[in-house]
């Protein structure tokens, strides 16, 4: 309940543009199978490379598949894989982070050193190295990306956990003899999850980029499942004759990522006072004017 409240309070402060974009992405992703007007993998070679028409609003690709439907289903693909990656990565990260934050000492040092190393290697390289050894596939991709992603949430949750552990009510619980399990599961873990989830959501954009990049390279989502990066690479040979098939998935992906990035930026920067907007200024001036000219004597 408490967790829900913190999350809701944080959502309230987020910029509207980000909420709309993310909301749209989520809605499309969840309800894609019902929204998509046509079967995304129905081929019709006679119709291949066609422009927008009544039957295919955004045209068809080189195999004659309906682009609009594929774009919508791709949102679902992206959402599911990004969701799995973030859930796995966050589970590992939060566990490691809270353990480090609870124990401190050498456990903390060791785990955070591992996190440092993980963070210093670009996630794409980590993921590709894993795929190179294990071989491509959907679950390899999810596992590889989770492996590349957990250090981020590990570092954040460690920070949150440390700050929770130093709060007076935890100190009081300890003095009162609460068991470590109660402190960990009853207070530390729920408090950490709530805060880390917001950061993780903001990071979803980068995760979506990674999924699309791996699929673009042919090492992520495998055909015929539609995915934006993979749709783009499929259409790349026809860039000259049919650029729409390259541009559409690219813009769809970029729009989704922009939504998450606006969210991330709004979380990161809020410290420096900004100059007043014109409307604010007028409001304040009116307020001052209402004080009147009491200062006639001196």
């Amino acid at each position, binding site marked *: 309940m408490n967790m829900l409240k913190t999350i809701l309070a944080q959502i309230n402060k987020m910029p509207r543009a980000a909420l709309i974009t993310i909301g749209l992405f989520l809605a499309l992703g969840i309800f894609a199978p019902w929204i998509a007007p046509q079967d995304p993998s129905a081929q019709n070679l006679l119709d291949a490379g066609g422009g927008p028409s009544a039957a295919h609003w955004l045209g068809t690709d080189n195999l004659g598949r309906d682009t609009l439907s594929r774009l919508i289903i791709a949102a679902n693909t992206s959402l599911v894989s990004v969701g799995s990656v973030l859930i796995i990565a966050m589970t590992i990260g939060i566990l490691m982070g809270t353990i480090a934050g609870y124990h401190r000492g050498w456990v903390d040092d060791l785990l955070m050193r591992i996190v440092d*190393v993980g963070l*210093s*290697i*670009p*996630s*794409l*390289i980590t993921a*590709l*190295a894993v*795929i*190179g*050894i*294990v*071989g491509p596939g959907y679950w390899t991709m999810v596992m590889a990306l989770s492996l590349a992603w957990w250090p981020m949430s590990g570092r954040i949750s460690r920070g949150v956990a440390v700050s929770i552990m130093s709060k007076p009510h935890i100190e009081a619980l300890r003095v009162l003899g609460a068991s470590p399990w109660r402190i960990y599961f009853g207070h530390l873990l729920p408090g950490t999850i709530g805060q880390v989830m917001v950061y993780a959501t903001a990071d979803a*954009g980068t995760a979506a*980029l990674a999924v*699309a*990049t791996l699929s*673009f*390279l*042919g*090492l992520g989502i495998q055909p015929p499942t539609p995915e934006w*990066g993979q749709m*783009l*690479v499929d259409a*790349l040979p026809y*860039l*000259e004759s049919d*650029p729409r098939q*390259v*541009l559409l998935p*690219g813009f769809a*992906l*970029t729009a989704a*990522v*922009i939504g998450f*990035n*606006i969210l991330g*930026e709004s979380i990161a*920067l809020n410290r*420096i*006072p*900004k*100059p007043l907007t014109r409307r604010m200024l007028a409001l304040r001036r009116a307020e001052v004017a209402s004080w009147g000219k009491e200062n006639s004597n001196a």
Partner: protein
Amino acid sequence: MFHFISKRLKHSLVLLFLASLVCFTLVVSAPGNVAVLIAELRGAVATPGYVDQVAEEIGLHKPLLMRYVDWLGDAVQGDFGISYRTGQAVNADLSKRILVTGMLIAGGGVIATLISLILGFLGAFWPYRLPDRASRGLALIGASTPTFFVGALMIYAFSVSFRIFPSFGFEGPESWVLPWLTVAVLPAAVLSRVVRVGLEDAMSSPFVLTAKSKGLGRTAILLREALPNITPIFINALGTQVGLMTATAIIVEPLFAWQGLGDYFLAGVRFRDFMVVQACLLLFLSFFIVVNLVVDLAVMLTDPRIRRQWS
């Protein structure tokens, strides 16, 4: 100062050792029998006897520690073993590939630095006004657009629509422009934000009030007071971005048909050519470690506070 450098060098050596350990373990733990793979590569029938012979030849029977020492000794001398796919030495044209990737990263890094400084300063000169909004909008879009899409857009705009630059190849400056621009977009976007936020942060510190009280104008304060303060932060962020550009190179090189290290690594991953993956990974990790070392030294030179801690 000397103390710092020697300490930092030792730290880097430890990291290099760990990196080599990671690369070695990765391949040792890979599924499948390497000897069979190589035997098949040589075109021979993989009889158990022959496989055994191959295993003996490449030292598979030796204890792990010995294998690691052998491998590391070879790697230090630039010998990364034999590619499972082609049967040729991994290091065949490695230096040429390193040069190509180096060109890509260096060009992209310079362009990203220039663009980010221009955008960041535009924003800091006119905070919350049109130039600031425009530059922040560009940064947001730049940081959100996938690199492969940036590349596709570059090709579409500059070589399909307007035939200004070739869409692929590594021949002469004209063919370098598009890959450089593509690789520069993401770091330029991230760094412009670093410059913008760093300058705004610096401009709200108390010493700026002193500078104002001296009668300095906004431009002078930005250039003389704020800029030196963000130099260490910028160098740090640039280092991270240069490291990240190796990942971008993996996408950009195949797109523009550049035969660099990224392209090589990707091919290795695609065909599960462990030796190539291992070699490239070791080179990438070493590059990150060296970049970090250079960044730390550069930060020490530009920040008197840190310099003093070590003198």
